[in-house]
């Protein structure tokens, strides 16, 4: 598995991909810095909610989409996936290192962005910063497993991911109450709330147990779906 993990890290660390994702993750940090420098900035709570919402609801899924969907899409488009599947290793030992590779590239960027953003918007409050970072990493893991699966299901994973993020997570989960039970954004926000109730208290949140259970369930289900897909697909 180590060889596939290392290969995936190298594949997902292309210059342009990293540049775009670093720029995206830098956005909330820059906003936090600007906010501390501007005297007549909007009230803290509104600003904090807006920036965290942008990081968790838009930037994070887009960054993970750009990275995780490529874990298999690139191999399929380049027709190199057969190098891995024509080896005597179980299919899960191909899926898991690919997924871990995607998480390993995305999570540090998102975590650093979360820590720096938290530092500026919460004025160094360690508990708030920790909750933001942990919640963001949980979301990275969940989005990664889904977008890795999408990458092996279709070469149009980016389109699927954009639809999912903007239609489901950004729009429907805000206006249809039941959708929050199937929203990664809500899972991660609920976990943030569990770590720091002062900052992230919201009546719309799920209980911590439901959020953790649902997160584990989503991870396992999409991991198994990916393994099943790799077993059944015609490898180009």
């Amino acid at each position: 598995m180590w060889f596939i993990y290392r290969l995936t890290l190298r594949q997902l660390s292309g210059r342009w991909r990293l540049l775009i994702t670093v720029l995206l993750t830098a956005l909330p940090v820059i906003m936090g810095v600007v906010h501390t420098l501007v005297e007549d900035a909007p009230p803290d709570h509104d600003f904090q909610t807006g920036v965290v919402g942008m990081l968790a609801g838009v930037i994070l899924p887009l960054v993970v989409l750009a990275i995780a969907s490529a874990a298999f899409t690139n191999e399929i488009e380049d027709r190199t996936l057969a190098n891995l599947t024509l080896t005597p290793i179980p299919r899960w030992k191909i899926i898991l290192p690919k997924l871990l590779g995607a998480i390993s590239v995305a999570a540090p960027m998102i975590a650093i962005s979360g820590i720096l953003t938290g530092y500026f918007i919460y004025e160094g409050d360690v508990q708030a910063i920790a909750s933001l970072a942990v919640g963001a990493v949980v979301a990275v893991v969940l989005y990664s497993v889904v977008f890795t699966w999408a990458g092996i299901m279709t070469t149009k994973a980016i389109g699927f991911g954009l639809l999912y993020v903007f239609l489901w997570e950004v729009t429907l989960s805000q206006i249809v109450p039941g959708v929050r039970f199937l929203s990664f954004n809500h899972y991660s926000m609920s976990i943030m709330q569990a770590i720091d109730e002062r900052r992230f208290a919201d009546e719309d949140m799920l209980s911590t147990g439901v959020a953790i259970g649902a997160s584990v369930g989503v991870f396992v289900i999409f991991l198994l779906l990916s393994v099943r897909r790799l077993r059944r697909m015609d490898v180009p």
Partner: protein
Amino acid sequence: MTNASDAPTNGALGSQDAVIKVENVSRWFGNVVSVSDVSFEIKPGITGLLGPNGAGKTTLLRMITGLADVSDGKVTVFGESVRNNPALYARIGVMSEHETVYQFMKGRDFVKMMGQLRGVKDIDNAVDKAINLVDLSDAAYRPMGTYSRGMRQRMRLAATLVHEPEILLLDEPLNGADPRQRVHFQNLLLSYASLGKTVVLSSHILEEVEQLADTVLLIVNGKLAASGDFHAIRAALDDRPYHVRVISDAPRDLASALVKLESVDAVNVDPEGAIVVLSRNVRDLQIELPRLAKASGVRVRRVEPLDDSLESVFGYLVDR
């Protein structure tokens, strides 16, 4: 289908068990049938999978490797289903037709990774051996993105050979190879097959297959058009017209005499003065021609078949 499998073939093929069995295999994509009810067995030695582009060779090879599923029928390798059976890949080496490689990866690292993924024990020695076999030691530490097309193919072949598979499946492996590399490659495959291994080589270039293969499987329009030894296939096509070129000192006299023979269908004299005879019964022609020439007082200088290459057999089968 023309079946020449009972005809004598090269080496000990007839005495060994089949390692690959393809039984009534079909594959369709929507309404398009790519492979239709194909059955054959492959034994150790070199087998050529031959057919024009789009004939279904690659689809068939992909089903044999387990990369693609069959729509109907069964493929077994060493008696086991190859699909969803990763353990078999420890005994199989596959080189697909696609030449894409990990551009950033050094050639040696690629071969090493493929060996490690296949559980090769003495990995460094195995990698050196495989790279030496393809004669690429000098370029082993260069990123594969800097390789020529032929070099990429050879390094991919090294990666395919690194675990010394019992079966080698190669799809259009000589694409991009220059003449010197072709000879090297052919010698390599011949020596590999002489170890009792099974090599399946797909190609649309008949010369390649003719020079290498003990057995030929001709795929035309998704169907097995013929199988067996090349020369046996040729002989089995008894209804096929043959062209024979005859050079003599009096071509017009000999041509007018030849046209009366029952074994001759048509006679032409080409601009160079050679007679081109079309015959469906070459055996009779071989007997009658010297007799006729002697009776006509014509000196025959040379008699040569014009279409004894695999190319002509193939062309005939495709046109039929």
